[in-house]
């Protein structure tokens, strides 16, 4: 305390010509103060104490950690009074401070002595603390700052010209996510067909279904009035039949699930059943008033759709084959598909309607009124495909005026999703291995498009056909797709090939499956 008083007095002695700091100043002085003062927070009435307050602060501020921990060891005088330094007396007059009265000189003096002290304080650090400080600064600066300087040229490098954009962006833009973190999902999809087969005289008719691939690896193709079987394993071609009259043609083919019988729909409204091994017609089922363009099997029930708009259920085992009639369409039925579990039948017609019929419990026949009628498509609905892994999910594609693929939840009747393909959708197939969908299109590109489900992002586009791709069928191993175009070619695409590991896994699954089938038959 005493040594501050000494400083204080020393200071006032030095500034004898300064303004009177004790007591109110002269009137002219006060007036001048009012004008010049900016620092209003200081109070001049406690001039005797003010410097001490300043002092206190200037001493305490640059405290080193050691000071904080061991205040006793510090050689700096602490003013106990400082901590409880009196506030402005409550009854005090409000003085406007005089800058000259705040004693900058003393403050400066104290600060300079203080910085000298802090150097001493540095010496008071224990060696371990010094080491700690050094390591910290080395960590922070990447080098020992006490032995190094980091300098830079004051004039900075010129900036890149205005509007310049890093052209590496082009390199990076194709990959949205860092390659390292995301598992590679792209597989090689050959852009050219594995094989091209001629299909002379194939009818360029959107409303027919002229292609089907059996589980025995036989591909049935209708070329006008004849049906050919192409053995995909050996490459052999067999003609199954030829219509007697030249103006008659086959409008639909469908293999039974077991692959031994082939159903045909003809232009004169007949539904025929053929034994492929014997090359013999087993049945000829009449009943339709017009040509049959769509067929679908559900165990022993064959459903057929006709140009008249009627759908007939045929029980192929009994003499009275026609066991049901569905009248839900007013125009030609061009799409007909039973769901894999046999619970729903989807039918699409030229009247732009998509009907869902549900099977009667315990029977492969359906109710005669549709469960759902969807009218969202703006054109004929030919392309129909049931999702193999998600029951009750149906994909449907519309014709030229519609161009949409729509997804339906047939349990609820909701349209789950729709995507505009910009082109007539002729056929749709699901690939269960990759959770993908392939669609075949007409004008303008005549392409096949592979979509990722459910994001519906395009995986690949396969082009090659020179006219619309009317029909598609998938091989029994689900790896190959055959497409038939109006350009009279069949193209075979290996677009869903499995890698070796998956193939092996699938093989074991298949053999297991076969075993179970075998055991079932032996029980019978």
């Amino acid at each position, binding site marked *: 305390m005493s040594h501050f008083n000494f400083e204080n007095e020393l200071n006032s002695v030095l500034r004898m010509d300064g303004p009177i700091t004790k007591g109110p100043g002269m009137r002219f002085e006060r007036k001048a103060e009012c004008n010049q003062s900016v620092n209003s927070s200081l109070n001049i009435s406690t001039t005797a104490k003010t410097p001490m307050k300043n002092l206190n602060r200037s001493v305490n501020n640059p405290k080193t950690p050691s000071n904080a921990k061991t205040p006793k060891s510090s050689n700096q005088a602490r003013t106990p009074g400082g901590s409880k330094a009196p506030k402005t007396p409550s009854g005090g007059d409000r003085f406007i401070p005089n800058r000259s009265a705040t004693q900058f000189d003393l403050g400066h003096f104290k600060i300079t002595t203080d910085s000298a002290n802090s150097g001493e304080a540095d010496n008071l650090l224990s060696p371990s603390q010094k080491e700690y400080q050094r390591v910290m600064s080395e960590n*922070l*600066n*990447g*080098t020992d700052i*006490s*032995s*190094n*300087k*980091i*300098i*830079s*040229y*004051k*004039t*900075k*490098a*010129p*900036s*890149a*010209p205005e509007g*310049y*954009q*890093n*052209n*590496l*962006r082009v*390199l*990076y833009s194709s990959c949205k996510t*860092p390659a390292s973190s995301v598992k590679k999902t792209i597989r090689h999809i050959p852009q050219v067909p594995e094989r091209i087969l001629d299909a002379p005289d194939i009818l360029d008719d959107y409303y027919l279904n002229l292609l089907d691939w059996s589980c025995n690896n036989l591909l049935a193709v209708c070329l006008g009035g004849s049906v050919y079987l192409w053995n995909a394993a050996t490459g052999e071609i067999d003609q199954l039949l030829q219509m007697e009259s030249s103006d008659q043609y086959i409008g639909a083919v469908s293999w039974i699930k077991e692959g031994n019988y082939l159903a045909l729909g003809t232009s004169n409204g007949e539904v025929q059943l053929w034994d492929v091994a014997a090359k013999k017609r087993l049945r000829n089922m009449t009943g339709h008033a017009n040509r049959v363009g769509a067929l679908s099997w559900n165990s022993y029930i064959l459903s057929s759709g006709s140009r008249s708009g009627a759908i007939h259920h045929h029980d192929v085992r009994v003499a009275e084959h026609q066991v049901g009639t569905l009248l839900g369409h007013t125009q030609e039925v061009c799409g007909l598909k039973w769901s894999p579990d046999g619970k729903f039948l989807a039918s699409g017609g030229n009247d732009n309607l998509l009907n869902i019929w549900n099977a009667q419990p315990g029977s492969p026949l359906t109710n005669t009124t549709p469960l759902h009628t969807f009218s969202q498509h703006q054109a004929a609905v030919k392309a129909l495909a049931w999702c193999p892994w998600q029951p009750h999910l149906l994909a449907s594609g519309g014709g030229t005026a519609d161009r949409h693929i729509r997804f339906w939840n047939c349990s609820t009747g909701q349209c789950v999703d729709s995507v505009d393909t910009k082109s007539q959708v002729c056929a749709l197939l699901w690939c269960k291995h990759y959770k993908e969908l392939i669609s075949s299109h007409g004008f303008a590109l005549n392409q096949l498009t592979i979509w990722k489900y459910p994001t519906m992002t395009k995986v690949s586009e396969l082009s090659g056909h020179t006219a619309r791709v009317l029909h598609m069928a998938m091989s029994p191993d689900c790896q190959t797709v055959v497409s038939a175009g109006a350009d009279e070619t069949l193209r075979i695409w290996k677009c869903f090939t499995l890698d070796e590991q998956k193939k092996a896994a699938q093989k074991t699954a298949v053999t297991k499956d076969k075993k179970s089938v075998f055991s079932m038959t032996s029980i019978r």
Partner: protein
Amino acid sequence: MAATATSNAITLKGSTEIVAEFFLYGINSILYQRGIYPPESFTRVQKYGLTLLVTSDDKLKDYLNPVIAQIKEWLYNMTVKKLVVVIKDVDTNEVLERWQFDVEGDKEALKDGKPRQKSEKDINNEISAVIRQITASVTFLPLLEGACAFDLLVYTDKDLDVPAKWGEDGPQFIANSEEVRLRSFTTSIHKVDAMVAFKK
């Protein structure tokens, strides 16, 4: 150049030249490869058996040349410890990349002044390996999205008199960075280690 291809002796002066030249080409390569300046402002130069791109922008040259000249001086005195190329986002001023070249000088060469034995061909091979790595780093470094600027930091001895045109600076580290160490080369007097740190 003191160290010519005919002799295998490397003097301090020659070593300084080689390292300074490497810095010049290295910085130019970084600026080109990272797209800091438009590629059309660079010209092709044959160096170290590689085709390198060197800026032809006069303003940039006016910046680089005095800096390299100064660094050369410090290399000769062996007062330079590190050269750091800092790439910052212009708008946020955030440091995105930090190319660090650690220089280790053999102080004995400063004293005795004796030339060392190392063929220039070997040195050039080592340098070209480093430059090739800089070129190849585009494949793993993240894209610099916005407009970027660069700055050069030099770590020197504490007792160095900082020239008037130079000022003290901070280390400009990248928070949460990933580091990739590149190859190093040595002239047997100066050893240069290269490293790149980038924002994860």
